[in-house]
């Protein structure tokens, strides 16, 4: 038997495979394909205080080994979530993590306070890296001072596990991870999407209504792995890695590079049961390698290369 349990502080995840925000709905959308309670956690859709319609259609473009999206945080707001979604999903036997968004620091703070009151939500993921909204989002995640301000404000009101999700669209990701750690967050997750663009040469216009959008999928995996490795070397809090994970091999690359857990994103659009297949594959790899505890391989490369 291989131990798959990993911890963020004193919060124990039964295994290190989570779904990524915005790519799994709230969980119930996947139950046709597998039992979501088998996963280590579900990071639900980006949520805001007020309901949001998101950006205009078209919102997506296929790109080589990836896709651009410009969803823009469409969601029904925290009231609807609390009343209609929370009761259903809190029955899953896994950690539900809410991805928290806002246009202002106040938005982030009020939303975090609201969620702090929800018993069955043990953690939030503070999204300061959404590239698809005009205000907030990536603006916080690409400026060190703003990042510090919003994390500090949320940390003051949110008492459970605080994960901060970083944007890869920065010169030095380590600087941001250090701020996350300094401000007392419990974990850092990365990467959100890379800012990209696609053009339709027949129509001679951008494919997305917003011109630019967020690039995800295997195309970004090398960048994600590099950033996870850089951050894991630099901070002591656990790192949650994501970006282009398609299969168990990819996930293991992230563990070796220093991720304590991984989130499965875009692949779920193509293979809805990918999260559980990846979980099974990770377990198989560990037993074939004779590794009895996943924690032994987490950050293995960091110990190896000095």
């Amino acid at each position, binding site marked *: 038997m291989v131990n798959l349990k990993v911890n963020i502080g004193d919060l124990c995840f039964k295994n290190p495979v989570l779904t990524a925000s915005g790519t799994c709905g709230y969980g119930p959308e996947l139950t046709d394909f597998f039992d979501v309670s088998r996963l280590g956690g579900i990071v639900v859709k980006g949520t805001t205080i007020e309901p949001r319609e998101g950006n205009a259609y078209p919102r997506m473009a296929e790109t080589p080994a990836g896709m651009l999206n410009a969803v823009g945080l469409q969601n029904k707001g925290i009231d609807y979530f609390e009343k209609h979604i929370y009761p259903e999903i809190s029955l899953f036997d896994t950690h539900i993590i809410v991805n928290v968004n806002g246009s202002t620091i106040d938005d982030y703070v009020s939303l975090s306070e609201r969620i702090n009151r929800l018993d069955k939500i043990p953690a939030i993921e503070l999204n300061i890296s959404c590239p698809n909204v005009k205000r907030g989002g990536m603006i916080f995640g690409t400026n060190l001072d703003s990042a510090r301000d919003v994390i500090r404000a949320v940390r003051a009101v949110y008492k459970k596990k605080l994960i901060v999700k970083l944007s890869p669209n920065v010169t030095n990701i380590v600087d941001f991870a250090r701020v996350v750690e300094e401000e007392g967050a419990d974990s850092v997750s990365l990467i959100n999407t890379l800012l990209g663009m696609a053009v339709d040469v027949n129509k001679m216009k951008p494919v997305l209504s917003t011109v630019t959008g967020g690039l995800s999928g295997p195309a970004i995996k090398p960048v994600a792995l590099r950033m996870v490795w850089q951050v894991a070397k630099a901070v002591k809090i656990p790192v949650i890695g994501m970006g282009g994970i398609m299969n168990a091999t990819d996930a293991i690359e992230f563990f070796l590079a220093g991720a304590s857990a991984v989130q499965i994103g875009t692949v779920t*659009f193509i293979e809805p049961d990918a999260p559980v297949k990846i979980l099974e594959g990770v377990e198989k790899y560990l037993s074939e390698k004779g590794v009895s505890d996943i924690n032994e391989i987490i950050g293995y490369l960091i110990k190896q290369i000095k």
Partner: protein
Amino acid sequence: MTKRVDNLKVVSNKILTEDFCVLKLESDQKLPEFRPGQFVQVKADRSPGTFLRRPISVHDVDIENNTYSMLIQVLGKGTESLYKLKPGDYLNVLHPLGNAFSEPVMNGKIVLIGGGTGIAPLLFLGKYLKNKGFEIEYLLGFRNKSRVILVDEYSSVGKVHLTTEDGSIGEKGFVTHHSVLKSQKISMIYCCGPDPMMHAVADLCRKNSIICEVSLENLMACGFGICLCCIVDTTRGNVCTCTEGPVFNIKELKW
């Protein structure tokens, strides 16, 4: 209906023109029940560079033989790889997806209007309605005579009216100008085709108080409601075409 992923075997691939074909697929498990208007997400994994699945309508269903078929139009690399499939090849699909056309509520003429590859879901729909005792007629629009396909198949279900843009067969012009839409009292129209065609049909229906359902072909990443990329603006706000659609009553659409 539970959605699932299946590996289907290609029974036949009937080449219709240089860019259209009909794929017939069978499963070694019992196929899920399909409703007309539903679609499936196909993995075009023989095409390097195709990353996402491709949405394709259910064109025809043969419950007894546990098969169904797809009408494919080659547009890009994904559909091209589907066009090249041979009997015995396998195709990975995610199915069944989406809502369905609703049944006609009023008496009167029922017309199924299709354009180009948009005719795909109307064969299954026509057969279904005929089976339920409704009499239907088809109004199919094509660019020109050489692009007209499957008339025999559709004729076996209902009377087929044709338009072509150049008048090389059927009436000349767009479907909305066809005489059949003027001659008789129409109670319900089902429509699937290029966006401009659906807009024109919707306008006509609004003007003449005809109930109308259209099937949209929005760009999709997932096809089952988790990516929120396929939205359409409705009276209820932005909703997903893949779960709340692809079929919409035009009353709901903010066109």
